[in-house]
């Protein structure tokens, strides 16, 4: 494969990864909190779930997600030969 098509593959995969993470981000930033009153009827670790998500749950998701993102993107870069030298 030549360099140009390799770049296209790399950018395609990078863009798909972006959409995945932005979707997760959207759900835990907005959707979950929109339904906080309903979620509060459930309980998680003794917390009302709606309160838990806003004070802790979404935050945990964001942190974990970013470490995953860094690994996944690095994998894409390496497989497409677009990674920096170590």
């Amino acid at each position: 494969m030549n360099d140009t098509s390799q770049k296209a593959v790399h950018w395609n995969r990078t863009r798909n990864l972006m959409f995945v993470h932005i979707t997760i981000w959207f759900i835990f930033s907005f959707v979950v909190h929109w339904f906080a009153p309903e979620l509060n009827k459930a309980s998680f670790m003794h917390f009302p779930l709606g309160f838990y998500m806003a004070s802790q749950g979404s935050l945990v998701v964001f942190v974990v997600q970013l470490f995953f993102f860094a690994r996944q993107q690095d994998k894409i870069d390496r497989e497409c030969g677009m990674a920096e030298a170590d």
Partner: protein
Amino acid sequence: MSIFRMQGSFIENLPKIYGFYTGGFVVFVLLMALMERAGVKEDTIGLMFVGFTVFIYAVIGWLSRTMQLDAYYVAGRQVPAVFNGMATAADWMSGASFVAMAGGIYMAGHPYLAFVVGWTGGYVLVAVLMAPYLRKFGCYTVPDFIGTRYGGNLARLCAVIVLVVASFTYVTAQINATGTIASRALLIPFQVGIWIGLAGILLCSMLGGMRAVTWTQVAQYIVLIIAYLVPVIWMSNKQGFGVIPQLVYGDAVLRIAELETLHQVGVLKSAAQSGLTALNVKHNAPPDTFVGSVQFVTLVACMMMGTASLPHILMRYFTTPSVRAARTSVAWSLFFIFLLYFTAPALATFTKLQMLDPNLATSIIGKSVADVNAITWVQKWTSVGQVKVIDLNGDGILQINEFFMRPDIVVLATPEIAGLPYVISGLVAAGGMAAAMSTADGLLLAIANALSHDLYYKMIDPKADVKRRLIVARVLLIVIGAAGAGVASMRLTGILGAVAWAFDFAMSGLFFPLVLGVWWKRANRPGAIAGMVVGLLVGSWYLYMVYAGGMKPWIGIDHLRFGIIGAGASLIAMVVVTLVTAPPDKETQDMVDEVRIPKGDTVLGSTH
């Protein structure tokens, strides 16, 4: 201290150096505790805490002095991901996060958690959409990216203007916070405190630019996180909730709900008394109306998009050794920020329980007014006008709507409310000072660097030599700092109002030009200029109309959320103008391709 000159060995020794520093700080805290036991006055301990920590930051700033361009602008691009994460966390967490956030949750309950979600989730946007690409670009400042990607001085100038408007709004609030803490700890008037605070801030940044700010911010993060976590863990342990309070305060939330019924929270209401408020809403009452839910998600959106547009945050990721390290560094930043943000709601909950639960010795609601007025911390904070007890119904018993306080004092007063030794209050003051100073440093440097690099060097005098550029940068730092302190001393805005506005200004002008600069190859110069100008103008117009012009906010989008309107207008203007004008030339399109892959050289040279 020759290690600071031998960069290689200094970077390798970072864990050891900061481990030693942390140990030293813990010893200092223990020493203060012993002095308190030995009968040293509280004022002296507060003074020692603030004085000693600021002195250490100044020493680090002095040791990191430099006359090299890439060291001054981007810390030589060799800050390891984890340390850059700590520096970003300190850069990020301002006086508002440290001092005001827990208090806000205490007073406003669930709706205020929008700040907690918004000020963390924004980093997902930073990592996924921006930081790695800006690092690959190799710019010194954010306008440097705009100016090169879109080309031309006008685009660069627009970015500089948005940056200055947003960052200057922010920095006055931070200098205000440093002044407040310095005046209380050093027992000097507020007006003097501001200038002393500014002197400390400038000592950290002036001689070494980004390099000095980086290493002081790491030191400041260590102080501020210790200062935030220790009182909460101590208090939770005292109440029998164990040593990881963040995970187990669910029962406290439920207990508060019972007590709210007992004390009739939300039933007995009273209006604010000279800036002090009584507790009028329940702790766990999420918005249950359409407008309420819209207000929650729009505030979250503004804080997130603002995060991803604020230059003092983005420029931290220019300092990592590689694109890969920039990504990991965003993750570490968020982890270090998370440590404070998931603690703030726990702090608010425990403090509320302390005051409301009649089974606890520290409770005040439901006690006799005479008894409450005899409590030391109530007297102390009443004397400085931050707390007020008014027996509205004259029954001699303190009801929930008869106890007024300024929400900001929750963090500062909690050690006293919970009956912890004074040394903890001194520690908290040092932490608040570290939080406000580190953010002010980052902001001042962002403004001064944009003016010295983009305005002076790129537009006014491209022939200036290195020495001249670095002298101009430093003079600007002093001038902007003085201007910020001058505005802060007029006390125009509260801490939080100004902070939220900074986010709104930044997202209105910069969010879409930055994101689309990487993700939309077709985006061109006229489009970007239109995006910045229209975004900033429409945003400012909406802010003026709802804040001062008497206009009714559209579906609850008030002055804290005007960025939604500004950024919306910016997106429309940028897309429309781009599509009706010619696509960018081949050279620009190739540059965008180059930015999208990590390998290879940066687009801009290492010194430019």
